């Protein structure tokens, strides 16, 4: 409309005499400000309570300050080293002094841990040497002293590693997350076969989360539809059944599934009792993928049912009656008229379920066995046990990136405007 009024002498005006174009622009601006005003409180809240802490945490995935901070002299001495053979005596002297300072400030263990991520055994090398370093400094023969303390100091790879870790930033953790690593010369290469785990785990995590999402749609859609089309007095009673599992903690529900699924468990025993299975033919339903899928589908099912229900509740039943009176059979009416209107609910439920599934680790750890554990288990391991927070953060950032990528794909493919097109 506004575009039509291109001739300035013939502009459409609103009642108070302002040109319509201006008025619309103003209304749009007001609308935008209003929308942003509504969003602002939550946005600011999330920014301070969540985003700042997370950005801070994820910066650890590229942080490599341990070596430059704690071995400053060594880093400087190695700056001019060409990487051929062994570095000059001055580098050995610098390292000895750094080790002494590090032992006194008790920071040297951080260096030891950091180096050990790259080459197994470096922890012992650094810690052991640091205990003997006073004598080496006294003797003045740094090179012999250090090599005598531990033969690793006589290997060029050790020094190449130190040189490579001299920069305060690294992409090493991201490489490790993708089963890659730097070779001693600093070029990227694949991890040896027996250390490749993360790529497979990422793929499995995505695949299982998708499968679980699909299953929750399959199970959630019929009951949400049933409840949405029933009289309220019955559907509210059924709703209690959907809500009850929520009141039992995750740990309790997981434990309940163990009781249900194990080989002497409820499901197997019932099947044996009614004669479907023989006593020694009991199914393996747990400590494998099946266990994870069943337990997680159950735990996440309400996250699909509730959004579906709240969307289905807004669809007037008259639409279906109209379609049928126009000659569509029940199936056609359902597929052509009803389902398109529930896409928003499916979308919301799928996003919820998929994203939650991707981050679960306690349930897979308890019921998943070896084939049913997910990437989050590794993240938790590196956060809590190995304390390799850089790697944990890198894995987390990649996971986050995957989810955001999928979210945008979903937005593009299914789109929030889908309803208007249908």
């Amino acid at each position, binding site marked *: 409309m506004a575009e039509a009024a291109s001739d300035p002498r013939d502009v459409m005006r609103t009642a108070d005499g302002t040109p319509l174009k201006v008025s619309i622009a103003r209304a749009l601006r007001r609308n935008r400000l209003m929308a942003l005003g509504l969003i602002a409180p939550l946005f600011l809240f999330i920014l301070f309570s969540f985003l700042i802490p997370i950005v801070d945490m994820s910066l650890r995935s590229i942080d490599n300050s341990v070596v430059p901070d704690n071995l400053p002299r060594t880093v400087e001495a190695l700056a001019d080293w060409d990487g051929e053979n062994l570095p000059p005596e001055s580098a050995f002297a610098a390292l000895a002094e750094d080790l002494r300072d590090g032992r006194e400030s008790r920071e*040297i263990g*951080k260096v030891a841990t950091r180096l050990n991520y790259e080459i197994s055994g470096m*922890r012992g090398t650094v810690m052991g040497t640091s205990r003997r370093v006073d004598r080496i400094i006294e003797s003045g023969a740094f090179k012999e002293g250090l090599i005598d303390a531990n033969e690793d100091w006589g290997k060029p790879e050790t020094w190449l590693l130190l040189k490579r870790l001299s920069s305060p930033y690294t992409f090493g953790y991201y490489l490790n997350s993708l089963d890659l690593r730097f070779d001693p010369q600093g070029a990227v290469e694949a991890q040896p076969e027996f250390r490749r785990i993360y790529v497979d785990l990422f793929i499995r995590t995505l695949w299982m989360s998708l499968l679980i999402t699909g299953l929750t749609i399959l199970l959630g859609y019929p009951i949400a539809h049933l409840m949405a089309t029933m009289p309220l007095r019955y559907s509210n009673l059924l709703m209690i059944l959907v809500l009850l599992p929520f009141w039992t903690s995750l740990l309790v529900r997981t434990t309940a599934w163990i009781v249900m699924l194990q080989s*002497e468990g409820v499901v197997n025993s019932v099947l044996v009792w009614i004669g479907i299975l023989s006593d020694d033919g009991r199914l393996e339903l747990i400590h494998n993928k099946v266990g994870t899928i069943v337990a997680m589908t159950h735990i996440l099912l309400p996250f699909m049912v509730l959004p579906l229900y709240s969307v289905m509740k807004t669809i007037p039943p008259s639409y279906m009656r109209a379609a049928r009176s126009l000659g569509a059979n029940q199936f056609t009416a359902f597929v052509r008229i009803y389902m398109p209107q529930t896409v928003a609910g499916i979308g919301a439920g799928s996003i919820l379920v998929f994203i939650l599934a991707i981050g679960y680790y306690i349930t897979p750890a308890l019921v998943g066995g070896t084939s049913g554990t997910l990437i989050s288990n590794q993240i938790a391991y590196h956060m809590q046990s190995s304390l390799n927070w850089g790697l944990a953060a890198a894995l987390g950032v990649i996971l986050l990136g995957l989810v955001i990528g999928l979210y945008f794909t979903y937005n593009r493919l299914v789109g929030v405007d889908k309803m208007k097109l249908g």
Partner: protein
Amino acid sequence: MKKTLRYTTIGLAGIAGLAFAASAQAVELNVVSWGGAYTASQLKAYHQPYMAANPDVQLNSLDYSGGLAEVRAQAEAGNVTWDLVDVVVADAIRGCDEGLFMELDHNAMLEAAPDGTPPMEDFLEGTVSDCFVPQIIYSFAFAYRTDAFKGEQPKTMADVFDLEKFPGKRTLQRSPVNNLEWALIADGVPVNEVYDVLDTPEGIERAFAKLDTIKSEVIWWTEGAVPAQLLADGEVVFGNGYNGRLFSAIEEEKQPLAMIWDGQVLDIDGWAVPADGKNIDEVLKFMRFATDTQRLADQAKYISYGPARKSSLPLVSTHAELGIDMEPHMPTKYAELGFLTNFQWWADNRDELNERFEAWLQQ
């Protein structure tokens, strides 16, 4: 067990009562431990007598599930709220390396034995480390179901790995630690040579190859509560777990299980003091009390873990509620059948072997 729990309840009620009654100037110490029956035994042996003797000190008992994530996060944030942490020795070494725990002067900070032996000599050999005061010796041992096999019963580690003679599922911890050692022992390596063999690439290959032979029959656990549950349910015929938990399943809950002490791995649990805590002086006082000869012996009344002091061993008496002699249930009695984990070796090799172990699991 019923009684244990009732006493726990009373104990906790007592602590909470004190918590509400505590006046504002009382010192509060946050003591962190593993929870469950283990914390209950500590409350009875250490916390309650100490608070009774020092009414101005309030000990808060917090639970955690291991690892150093919280300790490290507190140290990095400069907000250390945990005053004393019960840790396994592997974590103590790692935390000590990183400067998360305070270095201790054991002889000056701890009680001597009643006969005057200094603490460094009274604690069992190889258990003390720079930031760590040992408390109890526990073991990872196997138990098996006594109703699973007719005729010959399993006795050795080789039997655990023998699927033909003793078929059925086993449950092992999902970690390379201990499993590689056991695989070698089952493969005929003498206990005292395990780490020499493991220190070579061929030794590691050999251990994984042996594990391959039982891989299809293993359920891997990650939470310590799981193995006793699986054994009690009859889901597995062998399971390795904390000996104290297996003890309570056998003796208190009368489950049809028996221990295999052969090849048991002795491990140490004890105290570490987070560096830069707010109440270091008070905590050291409590730790001095809680690790004296009598207190360590007392704890063994409530849980079947062996005290870490030589002078405590003769004082270990009968179980406080069951009235049975605890001595045959102490892992320390069977020490010659097992070995102490080589913590330094694992500290050096754990990062790589864990990845390798996980990759092996996925194959």
